[in-house]
């Protein structure tokens, strides 16, 4: 039963799409039914994923199943639609279906009464289906299709409240920023097809192992990296993710944890045979990831919006994962992706619970005293924050430790130190949030009340996952995760107590500092702000990256556009309109050949025959002569 279940893995991706189609076509007038169908689809997908994963995991990662159907065939191009199930896929299936299922259940409460309830669930299903299709794909062509569908789904959901201008803008920003990365990704796919004639992962892995032109491989790897940099919001294409919180909060949870940003990291893992063949590309990945981790963490320290803090925290953690990939610790990166999915969706859903209770208040300074009013939300949130900060024995501790170990043991000492600093900052900004919003002296939380069970139960489940999900990758369970997800030639380093101790200590230090500053008010925050106003403003304005981009767009792109616009209006349009007018005139003239007279029609027919015979005879005589 379990081993055969992998053959039916394709159903996992199909189910949400069926739900999407049924809701979109027939059920959208019945919101409750739509929601039920959507949850049912992802629920069954979750159960199948569970069976599939158990089958894969119980084989210690040796079970690999691939099946494909020919989708398009022509000389020189064979395109397949297929599925590939291995340890990496199995982990992603579990993560995506678990988080999507819980988010959809949670949304029953959060989105209650929204006029777009049915379409919200249609989009949710579409989002989940796209991501699952991406995870199951066995070739780059297919992964790209679903990659784009994920982008489309995120666009629809971020802009779900399209009545708000900011939501519209955020949706556009997410879509366009992603397109920049997708462009590189698509180019790399085209190069792979041209060079190797296949896009199948296993086929390419074999081809690339024997390929020696490293220059081209580096080019392909860097182009492909553009995709994850966009999708997983790495510097410099990170700008869309913080704005993406304009969508409903459960959507943010989904985007930040399971279905959107995870796609980029997953792609690096899936295409690891390409990246690992060129040390240069790996180094680029590591540097981008490390930089993003630090860069985003420093921004998170000074933000006031609860979702914005979490958004920058996601950026920072994604940087961690990408950095892990870059230092050769692919397994650790995926491990962190998994644990992060649980605690980050927990944090976002917790934030949603708070925002819901406070009627859309998102400023942490206007909250306070929530702990007494919303005990479940508060304590699950604290668990999430402890996991994120890397406090043992919660899940984040184990995965973060694996990454730091990977960086240290592979000789990237700089990145190791950077990672440790980020760990400190992470603990600090998370507990700044908690001490201000949940335990602070603000009055905002007084009127709050705990969210309904459909919202709080998913929080509890995720909190449990945030605590225990890390054990599979810990020495306590012999690090079985490394058997599930790995790559040929992976080096596993023995756990180092020293690194564990250091990372735990800096995390605790961060928490204590936050406690001292924001709970005990030992330091006058306002004074520090004024003293280092320049730095504060720089961080608060996110290093002015958005402003720089805006300036570039205004001057470079708009300028170019103006020139092209002139060309378009006066040269191209002139030509096109001229041709169109001519074409229309030709149609007008030709229609007069049609006069309704049978005699005329017959005459044209015979004239046609005579002309053909005449022409053929002239040509024919030429041949005979």
């Amino acid at each position, binding site marked *: 039963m379990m081993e055969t279940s992998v053959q039916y893995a394709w159903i996992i991706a199909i189910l949400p799409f069926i739900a999407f189609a049924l809701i979109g076509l027939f059920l959208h007038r019945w919101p409750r039914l739509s929601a039920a169908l959507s949850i049912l689809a992802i629920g069954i997908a979750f159960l199948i994923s569970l069976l599939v994963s158990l089958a894969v995991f119980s084989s210690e990662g040796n079970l690999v199943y691939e099946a494909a159907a020919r989708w398009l065939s022509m000389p020189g191009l064979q395109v397949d639609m297929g599925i590939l199930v291995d340890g990496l896929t199995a982990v992603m299936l579990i993560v995506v279906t678990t988080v999507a299922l819980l988010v959809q259940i949670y949304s029953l409460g959060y989105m209650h009464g929204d006029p777009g309830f049915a379409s919200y669930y249609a989009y949710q299903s579409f989002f989940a289906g796209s991501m699952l299709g991406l995870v199951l794909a066995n070739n780059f062509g297919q992964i790209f299709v679903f990659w784009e569908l994920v982008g489309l789904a995120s666009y629809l959901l971020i802009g779900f409240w399209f009545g708000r201008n900011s939501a519209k803008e955020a949706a556009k920003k997410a879509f366009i920023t992603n397109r920049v990365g997708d462009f590189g990704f698509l180019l790399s796919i085209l190069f792979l097809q041209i060079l190797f004639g296949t896009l199948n992962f296993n086929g390419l892995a074999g081809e690339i192992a024997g390929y020696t032109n490293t220059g081209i491989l580096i080019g392909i790897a860097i182009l492909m990296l553009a995709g994850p940099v966009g999708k997983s919001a790495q510097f410099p294409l990170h700008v869309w993710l913080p704005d993406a919180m304009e969508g409903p909060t459960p959507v943010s949870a989904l985007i930040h944890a399971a279905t959107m940003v995870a796609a980029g990291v997953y792609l690096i893992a899936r295409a690891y045979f390409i990246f690992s063949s060129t040390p240069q590309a790996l180094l680029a990945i590591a540097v981008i990831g490390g930089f993003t981790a630090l860069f985003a963490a420093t921004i998170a320290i000074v933000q006031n919006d609860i979702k914005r803090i979490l958004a920058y925290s996601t950026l920072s953690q994604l940087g961690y994962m990408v950095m892990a990939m870059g230092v050769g610790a692919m397994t650790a990166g995926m491990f962190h992706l998994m644990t992060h999915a649980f605690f980050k969706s927990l944090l976002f859903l917790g934030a949603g619970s708070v925002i819901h209770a406070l009627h859309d208040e998102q400023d942490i300074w206007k909250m306070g005293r929530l702990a007494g009013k919303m005990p479940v939300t508060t304590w699950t949130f604290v668990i999430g924050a402890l996991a994120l900060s890397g406090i043992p024995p919660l899940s984040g501790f184990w995965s973060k430790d694996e990454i730091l170990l990977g960086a240290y043991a592979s000789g990237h000492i700089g990145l190791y130190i950077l990672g440790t600093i980020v760990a400190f900052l992470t603990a600090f900004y998370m507990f700044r949030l908690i001490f201000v919003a949940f335990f602070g002296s603000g009055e905002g939380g007084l009127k709050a009340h705990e969210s309904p069970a459909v919202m709080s139960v998913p929080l509890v489940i995720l909190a449990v996952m945030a605590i225990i999900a890390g054990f599979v990758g810990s020495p306590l369970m012999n690090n079985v995760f490394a058997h599930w997800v790995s790559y040929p030639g992976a080096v596993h380093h023995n756990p180092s107590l020293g690194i564990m101790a250091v990372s735990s200590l800096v995390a605790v230090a961060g928490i204590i500092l936050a406690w001292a500053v924001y709970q005990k008010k030992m330091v006058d925050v306002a004074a520090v702000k004024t003293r280092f106003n320049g730095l504060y403003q720089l961080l608060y304005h996110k290093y002015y990256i958005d402003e720089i981009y805006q300036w570039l767009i205004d001057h470079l792109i708009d300028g170019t556009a103006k020139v092209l616009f002139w060309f378009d209006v006066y040269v191209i349009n002139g030509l096109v309109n001229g041709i169109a007018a001519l074409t*229309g005139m030709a149609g007008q003239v030709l229609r007069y050949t*049609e006069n309704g007279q049978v005699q005329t029609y017959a005459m044209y027919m015979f004239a046609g025959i005579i002309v053909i015979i005449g022409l053929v005879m002239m040509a024919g005589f030429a*041949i005979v002569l």
Partner: protein
Amino acid sequence: MQISMLAPEIEIALLGLLLLVLGLLLPHKGRGIMGTVTFLGLVIALLLSAAGFGQEEALFNGVYQADSYGSFFKLLFILAGLLVVLSGSAYIQRLGRRANEFYSFLVFALLGMVVMAAAGELITLYIGLELMTISFYILTAYLLNNELSVEAGLKYLILGAISSAVLLFGISLVYAVSGTTVISEIAGHMQFQPAMVAGIILMIAGFAFKLSLVPFHMWAPDIYQGAPIPVTAFLAVGSKAAAFAAFVRVFMLALPLPQFEWGLVLAVLAACTIILGNLVALVQTDIKRLLAYSSIAQAGYILVGMVAGNEYGLKGVLFYAMLYVFSNLGAFAVATAVEVETGSTSIEAFKALGKRSPMLAAIMTVCLLSLAGIPPLAGFVGKFYLFSGAIGAGYLWLAFVGLLMSMVSVYYYLMVAKAMYIGTNDDMTPIKPDTSTRVALWICLAATVLIGVYPAPLSALAQTAIQLF
């Protein structure tokens, strides 16, 4: 030889006779079941043809062929017939007491098509062609109180008779030189003589009339406009595909003549047809005339595949003919529904259809975009095969003409879409087609999208069917 190989033909013939008899026997009130009987009969024929797909057998010394090529087209005709019956039943019902013969003539026309596609001999082919054409003469003039319909029937009769004469003359010349009318034997007795060349050209002209290739196309718009709309739909799809089936079989198998490259003649005809069909379609204001010109242009595209004559081109001919059934009949089904509701076939009547009936408008748009060749719909894949075939065979200029004119076609197809979505209409009552029309529409929509997204199965089917060349 086994009689079971002719099972689809026999079943269709019996169905036609049964419908005639039923019409006489049943009381007036009981004739409501005629549509159902036709539908069930055609479903059985479809199953029989599908079961026969894959056999390759020559019957009666090659006079009749039971092969995959014929079976492919049989499936095509029967599907077209089914869709016409489904989408036209509301319209046909309005014909009142004469509805029963209407069904039987439809079935006889279908039988004629089937014979044309499977004929292995020129006279048999001609008989099939006449059976189809004569049924269509009657069907075209079926609205006796409608001047346009009667006029169209008469015009079709006169011009059809002329073209039949031309075709027969061509056949007789070919017979005179080769001494046989069996398609598979003609090539062996081929001689390069003026009479043979003239025979080939006259046969081209005869088929060109059925395919409405320029300059033999002039009947088409008048007849398409005048005929009852289900007849127009069947004429545009079925009759054309039948002519292609016979045309390709005869010319590819019987008439290869090294000294006379008739492919070039066809290429010129195709180019003229594509250009004229698309240009004149631009200025039409009546949906039936627009679709008439569009179908003239579409025949030109399909001819490109035959001109190419290679694997891709021929596969494209079959592939395109099949998808054309769904896309074109989908468009006609919407037009029928609109005419049943508003009594008008003017494009004006489509104004604000997007609000009156979003589903109809959406299906119309999808079908028209498919005809225009927009990915990911079926028409794109079809044109891709046809034009790749042409490029492969060295007809780059022809592929270029086809692509250029496809761009022009987007304009008039989108004019209909524009009327549906941007236009305003005083009458905003929703148009609700009956269930059978809705089923037909959904089939057309599903097939148009599915063939476009996943072309491999149909492509494989077409590949099997063209093995005989």
